[in-house]
């Protein structure tokens, strides 16, 4: 059971993530977009979206710091467990709350603004459930263990296990000892990774960092098109139709 949960399942999820991204990039570049709804509604989005995105980026940095960087390294540069713990709990909680509030605003906006809700697909709704689940579970685990409880040092257990996945010598037994809150959070997170390539979350992988270095105006030669008309593709679905307020469209 341990092997299934902490070895097979994570590898499967990561394989789906990588394979799914490659597949999506090869066959659905056209569908690779944020599918922004700002055109429908801007005032609420301006608060919710930056709050959520900057929050989640901070959370990402925190996770990289906690999971990828070994404890021995941080201690080598003089960060004691107590200092780390304080920093992680303080910054982590702020970032987590930003993310949660932002997500709450965005979900409320999506449900309550007519045009935005009409443009929400079934896929989006499922994605929101998983995404919100992962975030809430993570926050709950942290709050229960570190704020209410007397602290749990996941850097002794979860982090080595996570890194061991990448050394290709996974160690499922340490994870079995981890509190249930963290376990569920980890499992949900890998579910999210597996789902990721098939949702609009793919836009996270096209963060436009190249923009910072490229010249402003891009010139391209017609030859660069590789020649030929493109095959017709899904996505543009005929003349304008009346959306039904409750109807959900599956995009593909």
């Amino acid at each position, binding site marked *: 059971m341990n092997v299934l949960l902490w070895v097979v399942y994570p590898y499967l999820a990561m394989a789906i993530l990588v394979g799914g991204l490659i597949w999506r990039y090869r066959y659905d570049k056209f569908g690779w977009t944020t599918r922004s709804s700002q055109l429908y509604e*801007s005032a609420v989005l301006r608060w919710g979206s930056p709050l959520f995105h900057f929050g989640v980026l901070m959370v990402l940095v925190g996770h990289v710091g906690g999971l990828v960087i070994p404890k021995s390294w941080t201690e080598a540069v003089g960060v004691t467990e107590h200092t780390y713990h304080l920093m992680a709990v303080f910054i982590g909680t702020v970032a987590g709350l930003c993310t949660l509030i932002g997500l709450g605003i965005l979900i409320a906006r999506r449900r309550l603004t007519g045009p935005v809700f009409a443009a929400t697909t079934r896929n989006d709704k499922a994605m929101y459930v998983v995404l919100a689940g992962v975030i809430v579970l993570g926050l709950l685990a942290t709050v229960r263990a570190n704020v209410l409880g007397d602290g749990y040092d996941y850097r002794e257990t979860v982090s080595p296990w996570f890194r061991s996945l990448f050394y290709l010598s996974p160690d499922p037994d340490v994870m079995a000892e981890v509190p249930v809150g963290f376990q569920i959070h980890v499992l949900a997170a890998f579910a999210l990774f597996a789902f990721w390539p098939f949702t609009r979350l793919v836009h996270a992988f096209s963060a436009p960092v190249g923009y910072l270095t490229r010249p402003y105006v891009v010139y391209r030669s017609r030859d660069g098109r590789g020649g030929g008309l493109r095959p017709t593709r899904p996505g*543009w679905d005929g003349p304008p139709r009346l959306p039904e307020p409750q109807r959900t469209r599956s995009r593909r």
Partner: protein
Amino acid sequence: MRVMAQMAMVMNLDKCIGCHTCSVTCKQAWTNRSGVEYVWFNNVETRPGQGYPRTYENQERWQGGWVRTRSGKLKPRSGGRLKKMFSIFANPKLPSMQDYYEPWTYDYEHLLTAPAGDDIPVARPKSLLTGKDTKITWSANWDDSLAGGNEIAAGDPVLAKVSDQVKQEFEKTFMFFLPRICEHCLNPSCAASCPSGAIYKRAEDGIVLVDQDRCRGWRMCVTGCPYKKVYFNHRTGKAEKCTFCFPRIEIGQPTICSETCVGRLRYLGLMLYDADKVAEAAAIENEDDLYHAQRSVFLDPHDPAVIAAAREAGIADDWIDAAQRSPIWDLIMKYEVALPLHPEYRTMPMVWYIPPLSPVVDVLRETGHDGEEAGNLFGAIDALRIPVEYLAELFTAGDPEPVRGVLNRLAAMRSYQRRINLGEKPDESIASAVGMTGDEMDEMYRLLAIAKYERRYVIPAAHAEDAHRLEKIATECSLDYEGGPGMGGGGPYGQGPFGESSGTPVPVQVETFHMLRNRQTADNFTDAGDEPRRVNLLNWDGKGTPPGLFPPRPEETEHVEGTDR
């Protein structure tokens, strides 16, 4: 000198009657899809008016185009790279759907399914965004022909720039139509704003396009374009814009908007320009100089040095030839009657306009003067500050001199040609008053008034060898060589090895394009020599033989004149 070619357009505003045919045919061709219901790649707006989207010219608000920094460089008005990256999660300057208009349809089905009753059923307007009942309060041309009067026209950002006295008199004075498409700028700020690098300028013909596969829907281009001619498809989540009908241009056909223009007011042609000088010209300090700066970027296609440099840059001879015959060159550089739209945005737009003279003529006529007499016209152009100031805000960043010069030339042409029309002796002094000769005046008149299809649209096709690959005409059968078994015979594209329907099917676009072109460039209605043979039998009383009733004897067949198009 780095020579590049640019497909460009000039519109003669005197001829625009505001019929919106260009907008409608463009919409039919490009934006009759879900997600772009609100999008008009081509729209016609009434000036003074707020435009589409509303007040898009107010760059204080919408932050489009470039600004010159203190160090003399250009950066997008909405912010440089870092600022864009930090505002990527919610673009603070994106027009909302309401600034365009909320697209709608009508519940026509209700007309058929309504139960019998005392009242006549009506088709209610339904929002295309929510599917619910909606109230129609705005559209792409809601203020057409000054509808809404002063209340709406007062919201015109251009009007806000001209002086108060002008503003008060404005509505009495004049109104004109301004058709707009993407400017396909030499220095496109939409492309500069795109974080993904999906918007590019084609090196061959300068057409600015969005790569739909690279666009990630960050929406910065919508803000970056000061003309608000990049649109967000709210279903696909990608940016879309006017394509200058590149599939048509590539095979030498004019854009749809030009092709269908009722007033024949659009001109298409190539301009050669020096790509190395663009950045410097766009960053010139004084806004008034931008019009002249942009003209200085253009290269004379008749100059042997330019021709040599163009060849070196890989521009084919037929393109150089087209650049020499380009009506755009004549209108911008030779006759100097075309002006760029809002050069102060520093994007170096390439759709130029001949400002309208008719408002001046109308005022003269209404006040009982001869509206076509040269002296009257010159005087009126000087005296009527109102149209000149307004036009200057549109076309020359507020400098009235170039506008006055253009209007004087148009006025001179009008009165010079009237004398000829009335059978009087051409008056060379009218021409020389605006620095032209009578012959030049005559040529300009021909180009502006009676130029035929081939003169208005000088479009070199993409290189044949390219075009072939481009269109992927998979009809190139390996047996299709001279004398080979598959050598083309019956169909327009040859045949497959096993008869007409064998081989890969011809893509429908190619088929249609070539058919269209053949039909449209043919000299005759049907086949050669057919037209004079037609006779309306309904008008024939059975006596005698009206001409054309019988086919002509072979020796009588004459050359048939090309139809006027």
